[in-house]
C-alpha cells in the first residue's frame, strides 16, 4: 500500500482517478475539469469581444451570439469558478484542520462526477442542435419560447451538476464541523476553512431553490406543464424569484472562499498574523446571512413596487459594511508587517483595489432609482466582472501559485508568474473599466451588435483589446503549469518560509493519509506557534503512531453519474414537451424516452442499493506500514525525488 513505490500503467492511473475517494486526487480532478471549462468559457468570451470590437460586425450571427453569452456566463459560474474553488477546498481544507480525508469520501467523489457529467451534458448541446440562448438567468418567458433543445440542455445539465455541488457542500459542512484535529476550536480555524464552511452552508440553502426552479422548468418544457406559462395561469416572475434567491447567494458562495484564500495569502507574505481575526469571522457569517436577504435587487425594474424596492435597496447597502471591514482588515494585516511581493501576494495586492472598485459600483446599483438606469446596461457587466474577475479569478490564480507546492510538490515559475499577472491585470482593467461608461452612455447588455456613432465605438474597441490581453495572460498561466511538470520536485515543508496554518507543516509529497499522527493544535496559526518555539519536526502530535483508518476506492460514484447522464437524454428527447409537439424540437418515441429515463435512473438507484447493502468499512494501514511508508518517503525526498 505504499504511495510512492507502486508502479502503475497508464490504464492503472486512469482507473485510480475514476475510483478515487482521496480528497487530494479529487482536488486535482476538480482543478483539471475546472480549468478545461474555464478555457472554454474564456474562449467564448473572446469570441463575444471580437464580435463587439467594431460596430455592425458580422463575425458572429445573432443567434450564435446569444448561445455564446449564455454558455459563457453559465460555464464560468457553475462549471469553472465553482469547481476551481472546490479544488482548493478539497486540497487544503482537510489539511488545514488536520484531517485524513473529508467526512464522506464516497460522496466527495459522487459530487465531482455528477458535476462533471452535468457539465459535459451541457456542452454536448453545441454538437446536438445548438446551445441554450436565454442568458445564464434563463428568464422564463424567453426560455419557454426558445425553440430546439438548448434550454433543455441547460436545465438538465445544471440539475445534474447542481446536485453534485449540493452534495459537496454538505460534505464540507460535516467535514469542518466534525473532523477538526484536537485543539482546533472554531475560533482557531484558518479563514479559508471558515469561509469554506459558510460558503458550503450557503450552498445548502441556495441550491434547493435553483433545483426547484429547474425542475419546474424541466416539466414545463419537456412534459407539458405550465408553471411559468402565463397564458395557462402560470407566472414568469416566480422563475425570477427562484433564480435570484439562488443566484445572489451564489455570488457569495464563490466570493467568500476567495476572501478566505486571500486571508491565507496576505498574512504569510506580510509575515504577520491576520488582523482582526474574530471580526473577519463575524463579517464572513454576516455576509453569508445578508446574502440571502437581497435577491430582489436583481429585479428592481421588474415592477415589484416602491416598498419592496426600498427594503431591498437598504438591505443591499448593508452588505457593504461587513465587506468593508474585511478590506480594512487585510490592509491592516499588511500595516506593520514585512511584505514580500511574490506572485500570490501580487494577486492579493491587485485584488484589493479591483475588488473595492467592484464593491462600490455594487453600492451604486443598490440605490434603486439609479439602478433603473444602470440595470441591464453595460454598467452592470462592468460591475460583476470587477467582482468576479477582480475578486474570484485573481484568488484562483494567486492560490494556484500559492498552493501548487502542496498540491503537486512543484512550484510555478515566479518570473513568468509576474509577467502573467501584469498582462492579465492590465487587460482586465482595460476590458471592464470602460464598460462602466458604455453603460452610462446607454449601451444595453447582451447585444450582439450596435450601430456606429452612438458614442460607443472607441470604448468597445478598447474593451476588446483588453480581453485579448486577458486571453494572453491565461495562456501564459497554462504554459507555466506545463513547465512546472518538468521542474524539479520540492520535497520540503513550508515552501514559502512563512507558512502559518497546518497545511504548511506537512512535507511534500504528501502521503495519502496526510498526517501520520493527528496533530495537536495549540492556538490560532498552529504551525507558526510551533516554529516560534523552535519545533523542527513540524507539529506536536495528539496521538502516538498507530493504525490509520482509510476509505476504500469505489467506481460506484462514476457509474451513478453515468446513470443520471443517460436519464437526462430520456427527458431531453421527450415527445411530451411543447416544443416537441410543435415540431420545433427533435423527439423520440414515448417508449424510447421512458426507457432511457427509467434505465438511467434505474442504474443510479441500483448503485445506491448496492452501496447501502454492501458494508464498506474501509481499511486500516497498520502501524508498521505507516512507518515503512514514511521511511520510503524520506528516502525519496533525500534522493531529490528520484525513485
Amino acid at each position, binding site marked *: 500500500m505504499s504511495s510512492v513505490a507502486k508502479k502503475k500503467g497508464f490504464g492503472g492511473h486512469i482507473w485510480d482517478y475514476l475510483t478515487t475517494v482521496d480528497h487530494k486526487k479529487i482536488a486535482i480532478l476538480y482543478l483539471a475539469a475546472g480549468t478545461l471549462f474555464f478555457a472554454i468559457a474564456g474562449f467564448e468570451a473572446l469570441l463575444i469581444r471580437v464580435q463587439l470590437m467594431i460596430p455592425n460586425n458580422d463575425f458572429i450571427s445573432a443567434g450564435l451570439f*446569444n448561445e455564446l453569452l449564455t454558455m459563457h456566463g453559465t460555464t464560468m459560474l457553475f462549471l469553472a469558478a465553482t469547481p476551481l474553488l472546490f479544488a482548493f477546498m478539497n486540497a487544503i481544507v482537510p489539511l488545514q484542520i488536520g484531517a485524513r480525508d473529508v467526512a464522506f469520501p464516497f460522496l466527495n467523489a459522487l459530487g465531482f462526477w455528477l458535476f462533471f457529467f452535468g457539465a459535459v451534458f451541457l456542452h454536448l448541446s453545441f454538437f446536438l442542435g445548438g446551445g441554450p440562448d436565454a442568458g445564464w438567468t434563463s428568464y422564463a418567458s424567453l426560455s419557454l419560447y426558445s425553440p430546439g433543445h438548448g434550454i433543455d440542455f441547460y436545465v438538465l445539465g445544471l440539475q445534474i451538476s447542481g446536485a453534485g455541488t449540493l452534495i459537496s457542500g454538505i460534505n464540507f459542512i460535516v467535514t469542518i464541523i466534525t473532523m477538526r484535529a484536537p485543539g482546533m476550536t472554531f475560533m482557531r480555524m484558518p479563514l479559508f476553512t471558515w469561509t469554506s464552511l459558510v460558503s458550503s452552508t450557503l450552498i445548502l440553502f441556495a441550491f434547493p431553490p435553483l433545483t426547484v426552479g429547474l425542475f419546474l422548468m424541466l416539466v414545463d418544457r419537456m412534459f407539458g406543464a405550465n408553471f411559468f406559462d402565463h397564458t395557462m395561469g402560470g407566472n*414568469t416572475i416566480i422563475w425570477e424569484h427562484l433564480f435570484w434567491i439562488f443566484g445572489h447567494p451564489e455570488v457569495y458562495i464563490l466570493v467568500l472562499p476567495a476572501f478566505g484564500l486571500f486571508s491565507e495569502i496576505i498574512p504569510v507574505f506580510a509575515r504577520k498574523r491576520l488582523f482582526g481575526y474574530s471580526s473577519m469571522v463575524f463579517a464572513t457569517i454576516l455576509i453569508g446571512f445578508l446574502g440571502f436577504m437581497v435577491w430582489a435587487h436583481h429585479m428592481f425594474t421588474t415592477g415589484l413596487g416602491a416598498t419592496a424596492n426600498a427594503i431591498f*435597496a437598504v438591505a443591499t447597502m448593508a452588505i457593504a459594511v461587513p465587506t468593508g471591514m474585511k478590506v480594512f482588515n487585510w490592509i491592516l494585516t499588511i500595516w506593520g508587517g514585512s511584505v514580500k511581493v511574490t506572485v500570490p501576494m501580487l494577486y492579493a495586492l491587485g485584488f*484589493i*483595489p479591483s475588488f473595492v472598485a467592484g464593491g462600490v459600483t455594487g453600492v451604486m446599483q443598490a440605490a434603486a432609482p439609479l439602478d*433603473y*438606469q444602470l440595470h441591464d*446596461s453595460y454598467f452592470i457587466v462592468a460591475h460583476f466582472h470587477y467582482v468576479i474577475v477582480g475578486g474570484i479569478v485573481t484568488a484562483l490564480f494567486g492560490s494556484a501559485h500559492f498552493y501548487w507546492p502542496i498540491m503537486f510538490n512543484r512550484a510555478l515559475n515566479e518570473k513568468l508568474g509576474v509577467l502573467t499577472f501584469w498582462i492579465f491585470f492590465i487587460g482586465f482593467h482595460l476590458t471592464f473599466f470602460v464598460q462602466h461608461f458604455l453603460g452610462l*452612455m446607454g449601451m444595453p447588455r447582451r447585444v450582439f451588435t450596435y450601430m456606429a456613432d452612438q458614442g460607443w465605438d472607441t470604448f468597445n474597441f478598447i474593451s476588446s483589446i483588453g480581453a485579448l490581453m486577458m486571453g494572453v495572460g491565461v495562456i501564459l498561466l497554462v504554459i507555466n503549469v506545463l513547465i512546472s511538470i518538468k521542474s524539479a520536485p520540492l520535497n520540503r515543508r513550508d515552501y514559502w518560509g512563512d507558512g502559518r496554518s497546518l497545511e504548511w507543516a506537512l512535507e511534500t509529497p504528501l502521503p495519502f493519509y496526510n498526517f501520520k499522527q493527528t496533530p495537536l493544535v495549540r492556538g490560532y496559526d498552529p504551525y507558526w506557534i510551533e516554529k516560534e518555539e523552535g519545533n523542527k519536526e513540524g507539529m506536536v502530535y495528539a496521538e502516538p503512531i498507530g493504525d490509520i483508518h482509510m476509505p476504500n476506492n469505489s467506481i460506484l460514484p462514476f457509474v451513478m453519474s453515468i446513470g443520471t447522464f443517460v436519464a437526462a437524454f430520456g427527458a431531453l428527447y421527450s415527445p411530451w414537451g411543447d416544443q416537441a409537439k410543435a415540431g420545433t424540437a427533435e423527439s423520440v418515441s414515448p417508449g424510447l424516452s421512458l426507457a432511457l429515463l427509467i434505465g438511467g435512473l434505474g442504474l443510479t438507484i441500483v448503485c445506491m442499493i448496492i452501496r447501502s447493502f454492501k458494508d464498506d468499512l474501509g481499511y486500516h494501514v497498520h502501524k508498521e506500514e505507516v512507518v515503512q511508508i514514511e521511511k520510503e518517503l524520506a528516502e525519496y525526498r533525500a534522493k531529490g525525488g528520484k525513485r
Partner: protein
Amino acid sequence: MMKGLKKWRLFALLSALTVFLSACGEEYISTLKPSGPVGQEQLNILILSVIIMALVVVVVSVIYLLAFIKFRRSKVGEDFMPKQVEGSHTLEVIWTVIPIVLLLILAVPTLTATYKFADVAAMDQVDEEGNKNALTVNVTAKLYWWEFEYPDLGIITAQELVVPTGEKVYFNLLAADVKHSFWIPAVGGKMDTNVDNLNKFYLQFDEESEGLKDGVFYGKCAELCGPSHALMDFKVKTLDPEAFDTWVAAMQATEGNVADQNSSDAGEAAFANSCLGCHAVSAVSGAGVGPNLTAFGDRNRVAGFLEHTTEETTNWIMDPEYYKPGNLMTGKYSVTEEEAQAIAEYLMTLSVED
C-alpha cells in the same frame, strides 16, 4: 504632507470625474445628459454616490499604498519580525460606523426617489368632464418592435413614440410574447414589460427632439428577448404641446383609411393584397398583428434601425429575416422585387406631418 497628498488626489479624481460625466456620450442616448426631471434626479443620485464612493476609494487607496510602500520587506529588512497583533476594537468600530453613516447619506435620496418614481396616482385623475388629466401611453413590446397606443386619444402608432414636452407622461407597460424592457436612456430609467402583469411608471420629456442629431431620442429594449434583441430599437419624438395636439388631430383624421386593392398606385394595390392583413394604415384602428404604418413616412428609421430610405424599405420587405433574425414577419407573405419596391414607395407617402 499626507493631507496635501490626499487633497490633491481627491481634486484630481473629482476633476477627472467631471470631465467624464460632462463629456461622455451622445445627447440622444446618454444617461449622463438627461433631458427630463426623472433622468436628472437619477443623474443626481449617480453623482452623489460617485462622490461618496470616490471618497471611500481614495481613503482605502491611500492607506493601502502607504501600508505597501512603508512595509515592504526590502525596506524593513529581511530579518524583521513584525509584531503579531490580534486586532483593534477601536479601528473595527471606526470602519464599521463611518460606512454606515455614508450609506445613510445615500439611502435618504434613494428612498425618496424610489417612492416618487413609483407614484402613478395621477394616471387615474379626471377633470370635471371626466377626461383624464394626464397623458397615458400603453406600450406593448412585441418580438422586436414596439406598439404605442394612446387610449384616451383613440390613436395607435408603432416604433416611434410621440410625446409632448413639459408634462408627465404615464406608461402602461406590457409584453405580448416574451419579456422585454422599455428604456429611453436620455430621459429616464427603464422598466420591464412583463408578460404577466401591467407595469406603470412615468417619464417627463423636457427638450424638443428636433434639435438632436437625428431629431429623435433613442429607445432601447434592455432585456434579452431573442436573437434580434440588439435591434429592438425605437425612437422618441418630443413636440411642444401645441405641435403634439396638431399631430394627434392629424392621426385621428386618418380614421377609416385603408389601402385599395384596385388602386392605380401599384404599391397601394400590392400593399392591400399582401400586407394590409397585419399592418393598418389608419391610426384609429386598434392593435394590429404587425406595426401600425399610418405614419411610416414620418419615421426616422425602418424597422427601428435601418436608414429611412425607399431602398432599405425594399430590402427589408424582401428579406426581413436577414435584417432581424427571429422576427415574426418572415414568410407571412410573398411579393416580387417590383412589388416590394412599389410598396416601399407607397409606404413613404404615408405621413401625417407636413
